[in-house]
């Protein structure tokens, strides 16, 4: 598939790199003992360290180190046993230290890779350049007062992983697939909750365009995008804007831009003259972080099975389509539900029932899998009753609807309503005789060559059986009777 964008004067290639800030799942902050809980009252989750009071010293939280290493391993990345914390210096009202503790020259995680899959089924390897640990800043509220900003430091000092990709992405669709896949992996690993609305996962996108085959163009960086849709919109807008500027004979400034969610456009955030000069240097309050191979190996041993591996297993061992396997592995909870529901049964049939009936019903009811009224075991039991011929697939849909509605179990519903499939040939023959007797004219037409009417007879027989006749037997017996 070609990713080229055609402009007025020819084709352009889009080059995108992403920097994703993922909030580390931990109880306490990166360098202090205050809580990371979302939604506390203003400045409640703040210690004197987070507020940068004089004389306070940072002490690193080992769980955050553990989480960063685990994330690195999940992205098949190199773990650096030696890493260093640096100060990134800048002034802003929600940064009380006057610098952010980050990692510059020696990040904790090096090169890795993430595989994305697009709608057309193609897969692409996207290189991960590095992951480093750093502190989050506080939060500024600008809409509380006409001439003042309000500052809440609850987020100040919370651990973030900055996950930096190589400029390997070539379209907004790829960027969307990248963030979705990254979110999925982080959630499988349990290292970030991936909640984009609460800001646990946000992305900066670097976008440039070039003529195919040429060197990299000048890029712009659009900051702080907190949904997949915004990421894709911002990229589409930047691509269009840059092509327009370049085709009009202008040039792109390397600058930071802001995305306006109400208009879907980007605008310049700070001028180049004011560009930040961060003056990174090793933080004298923190010694280098040195890990042992044993520490890394222990984390490797506890890694869960990741979506790519589960998907491959579902395709090769269960015979699922690549598409179904992707849908079932996007969330860890979905994969576990499916494994539990399909264990020891017709794997493909359970996959069909989950992706069509169950997801359809959940969607319609505005529910998630976590609050599904149908448990994995009861969905599995329903599929068993289809497989052993107790009920037909058609009846099963009604039974399922009732299960979803009331939370009752399939055998009870079938028993109570007398929905068992009729596989008794005598009974079915009786039904067929009735249908043929009531439709003498059609029987004549069929016998004189109108083959299409066969479906009509099947339909009528199924109808008067209340959907309960075994369809295969109806077909077979009808054929014999109409000879």
């Amino acid at each position: 598939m070609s990713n080229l964008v055609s402009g007025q004067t020819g084709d352009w290639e889009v080059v995108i790199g992403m920097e994703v800030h993922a909030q580390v799942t931990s109880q306490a902050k990166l360098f202090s003992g205050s809580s990371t809980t979302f939604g506390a009252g203003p400045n409640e989750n703040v210690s004197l360290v987070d507020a940068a009071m004089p004389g306070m010293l940072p002490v690193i939280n080992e769980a955050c180190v553990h989480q960063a290493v685990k994330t690195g391993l999940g992205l098949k990345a190199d773990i650096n046993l030696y890493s260093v914390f640096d100060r990134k210096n800048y002034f802003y009202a929600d940064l009380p230290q006057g610098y952010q503790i980050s990692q510059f020259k020696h990040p904790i995680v090096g090169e890795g890779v993430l595989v994305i899959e697009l709608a057309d089924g193609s897969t692409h390897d996207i290189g991960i350049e590095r992951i480093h640990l750093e502190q989050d800043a506080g939060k500024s509220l600008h809409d509380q007062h006409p001439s003042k900003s309000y500052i809440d430091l609850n987020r100040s000092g919370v651990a973030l992983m900055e996950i930096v990709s190589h400029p390997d992405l070539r379209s907004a669709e790829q960027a969307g697939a990248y963030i979705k896949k990254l979110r999925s992996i982080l959630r499988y690993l349990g290292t970030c909750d991936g909640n984009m609305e609460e800001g646990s996962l946000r992305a900066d996108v670097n976008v440039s365009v070039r003529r195919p085959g040429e060197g990299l163009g000048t890029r712009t960086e659009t900051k702080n995008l907190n949904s997949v849709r915004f990421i894709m919109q911002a990229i589409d807008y930047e691509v269009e804007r840059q092509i327009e500027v370049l085709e009009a004979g202008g040039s792109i400034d390397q600058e930071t831009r802001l995305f306006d969610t109400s208009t879907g456009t980007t605008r310049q955030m700070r001028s180049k003259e004011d560009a930040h000069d961060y003056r990174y240097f090793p933080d004298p309050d923190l010694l280098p972080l040195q890990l042992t191979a044993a520490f890394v190996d222990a984390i490797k041993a506890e890694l869960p099975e990741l979506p790519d591996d589960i998907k491959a297993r579902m395709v090769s061992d269960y015979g699922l389509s690549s598409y179904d396997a992707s849908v079932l592995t996007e969330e860890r909870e979905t994969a576990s539900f499916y494994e539990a529901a399909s264990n020891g049964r017709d794997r493909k049939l359970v996959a069909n029932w989950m992706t069509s009936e169950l997801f359809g019903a959940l969607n319609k009811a505005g529910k998630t899998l976590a609050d599904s009224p149908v448990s994995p075991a009861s969905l599995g039991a329903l599929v068993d009753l289809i497989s052993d011929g107790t009920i037909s697939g058609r009846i099963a849909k009604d039974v399922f609807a009732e299960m979803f509605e009331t939370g009752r179990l399939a055998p009870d519903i079938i028993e109570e309503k007398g929905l068992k499939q009729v596989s008794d040939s005598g009974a079915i023959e009786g039904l067929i005789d009735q249908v043929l007797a009531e439709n003498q004219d059609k029987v004549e037409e069929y016998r004189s060559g109108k083959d299409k009417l066969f479906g009509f007879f099947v339909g009528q027989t199924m109808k008067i059986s209340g959907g309960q006749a075994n369809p295969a037997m109806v077909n077979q017996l009808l054929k014999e009777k109409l000879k």
Partner: protein
Amino acid sequence: MSVDKDTVKKIARLARLDVPEERQEQIAGELQAILSWIEELSEVDTANVEPLASVTGHSLPLRVDKVTDGNKVDDILANAPEQASGFFVVPKVVE
């Protein structure tokens, strides 16, 4: 490295220090003298020495992941020039 008036102006701005125009030349001279003195260190041959981030040989102490601090809004805001409903209040900063 040489420190001139423009360098002084730039680093003063980055550090949010107000250095009056008439003092910039003098400060450039002082900083230059300090840097020249430090540059004497470059006489030492360090070709085969790994850069050092610490001289103590200690390793970074780690903390367990437990909430042990926080819930002291009054202490946090004690020195704030202005506050409202638990927030620090500062002149409007919008980029």
